[in-house]
């Protein structure tokens, strides 16, 4: 049975590589991760950018390199050009008495302020160790925007995984090949497992890739991530099968996925915007629990016990969905 399941999976994989739409869905999580990286700044990126002329201020540069991102250009003209570019970069010109700070004029005030402070510290040769400030934190290492995006990315990825399944089923429906499978010595269960592998793998690989690309590997417990993504993709897979069985062409399948986006978005919004007193309003939605669980995983503070009961809730809802969906899927696969 396992060999035949694998045969079904390999066929799907093979065909998906030939289909633009499917291929697109496989790479979306990766594109998305790079896009988030480009647009959502991490904490370590909120630093000042300084530009110096090569050869000038070598001592200052050595001192400031610990605190700021430093660029060197070959002469004053290049420095001027660099400062005038759209981003927020502050130019340091000259040494000693003649030294001045060159800005474009539209930089945020605190960027310029920070640059000024840095210059002062370097002039007085102050070190971080000289500070008497004591800093306490909660150990959050990643920017909240990035985590928000990563979490939505994970939700979207498992949804896409389900959609990939529905595309593969729509393919079989359009070619009318399910009837051929029905008269082959392969059990329905083996076939359904085979068809599901693709979705589960895409979800697992896509989500892992996303976490890696976003640089969250340090905080995230991958075993927890994989387990939870697996559990939550069961729901997407069922949705994928149902959509596939109910759609006669690719466009219908894509359109019905949009319908699933609605409860998904509502769950995210519910979690983020409802006060603690009203959170229960979203308890019905598996996506709510998935989002909540993912958030803890991404922040690196999901305990195994929490993972267990979050998974139990998601599986419980999945079982209810299954009870409703299974007869419909079975009916759709006959003939």
């Amino acid at each position: 049975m396992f060999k035949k399941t694998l045969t079904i999976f390999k066929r799907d994989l093979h065909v998906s590589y030939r289909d633009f739409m499917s291929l697109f869905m496989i790479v979306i999580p990766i594109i998305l991760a790079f896009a988030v990286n480009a647009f959502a700044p991490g904490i370590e990126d909120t630093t000042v950018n300084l530009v110096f002329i090569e050869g000038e201020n070598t001592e200052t540069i050595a001192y400031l390199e610990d605190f700021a991102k430093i660029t060197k250009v070959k002469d004053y003209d290049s420095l001027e050009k660099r400062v005038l570019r759209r981003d927020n970069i502050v130019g340091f010109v000259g040494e000693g008495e003649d030294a001045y700070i060159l800005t474009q004029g539209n930089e945020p005030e605190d960027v310029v302020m920070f640059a000024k402070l840095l210059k002062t510290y370097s002039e007085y040769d102050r070190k971080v160790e000289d500070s008497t400030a004591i800093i306490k934190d909660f150990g959050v290492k990643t920017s909240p925007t990035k985590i928000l995006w990563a979490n939505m990315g994970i939700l979207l990825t498992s949804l896409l995984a389900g959609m990939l399944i529905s595309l593969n089923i729509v393919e079989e429906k359009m070619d009318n090949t399910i009837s051929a499978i029905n008269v082959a010595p392969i059990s329905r269960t083996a076939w359904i497992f085979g068809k599901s592998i693709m979705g589960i793998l895409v979800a697992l690989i896509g989500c892992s890739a996303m976490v890696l690309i976003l640089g969250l590997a340090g905080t995230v417990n991958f075993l927890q991530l994989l387990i939870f993504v697996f559990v939550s993709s069961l729901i997407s897979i069922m949705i994928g099968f149902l959509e596939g069985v109910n759609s006669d062409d690719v466009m219908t399948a894509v359109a019905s996925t949009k319908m699933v986006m609605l409860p998904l978005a509502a769950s995210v919004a519910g979690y983020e915007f409802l006060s603690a007193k009203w959170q229960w309003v979203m308890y019905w939605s598996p996506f709510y629990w998935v989002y909540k669980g993912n958030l803890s995983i991404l922040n690196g503070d999901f305990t195994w016990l929490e993972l267990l009961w979050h998974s139990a809730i998601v599986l419980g809802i999945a079982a209810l969905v299954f009870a409703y969906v299974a007869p419909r899927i079975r009916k759709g696969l006959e003939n």
Partner: protein
Amino acid sequence: MITVQNLYHSYNKDDNYAVKDVSFEIPKGEVFGFLGPSGAGKSTTQGILTGLLQLQKGNVTVAGYDVKEIKRKMFNQIGMSFEQSNVYSKMTAKENLKFYAKLFDVPTRDPDELLEIVGLEGKGKIRAGEFSKGMKHRLTFARSMLNNPELWFLDEPTTGLDPAIASVIKGIVKEQNEKGVTVFLTTHNMYIADELCDRVAFIIDGDIHLIDSPKNLKLEYGESKVEVEYGDNGKLKTETFSTLDEKDKKKLADIIAKQNIQTMHTKEATLEEIFIKVTGRELI
């Protein structure tokens, strides 16, 4: 190879039967034709035999298996060629066969050899989606032979094919049958049935009217006729006469005596004519 006893089937599970009280038996090695007009219940019966439809009432065994509880293993011995071709458009012809072959637990035939048999040699690397209708049909047909089936279901195997290819397909069926393969053939086409079948069943409105060999049917119901073409005052005339009817016989003798006969053929009754005669219905 197949036994069907008092089979009933209703799609809505009411008294409106698509198939009612159907019984027949197909011994090993026979080519059995299932003939009837559209909506007669042919596909329904075949669906039950192949497990595509749940058995509701009656006893059915296929290749030694009770159809009440379909065992997937059964399909290792069965081949099924569908009326409407159903192959993966995004896969090449050969990939289609190789994939399907992996689903069997029994030795399967070489895909290239099968492609050659159905006249698709050299087309193995083309995606089935780019095939013409007839080519897809032949691929579907070839696929049904992958597992060397003992029992072969053929649903309209030659419909829509050009005559040359249709005769190739007929040849393959005959050849397989000579090797001992039992064939269950569903068709509207009486000529194919006549040529291939050892016995045929006439089915209408879910009812089997009779089961017999084409030869017996012709002897029993067929009225043989003579078609005469003769010149009558310079004009060519064609007339058909029964060889049994006394009036016709006299007329024919008259023409032979007096006219200038050009051609003369005896015409056997076709299976189609017999069907109409027996059932009072056209085969549409």
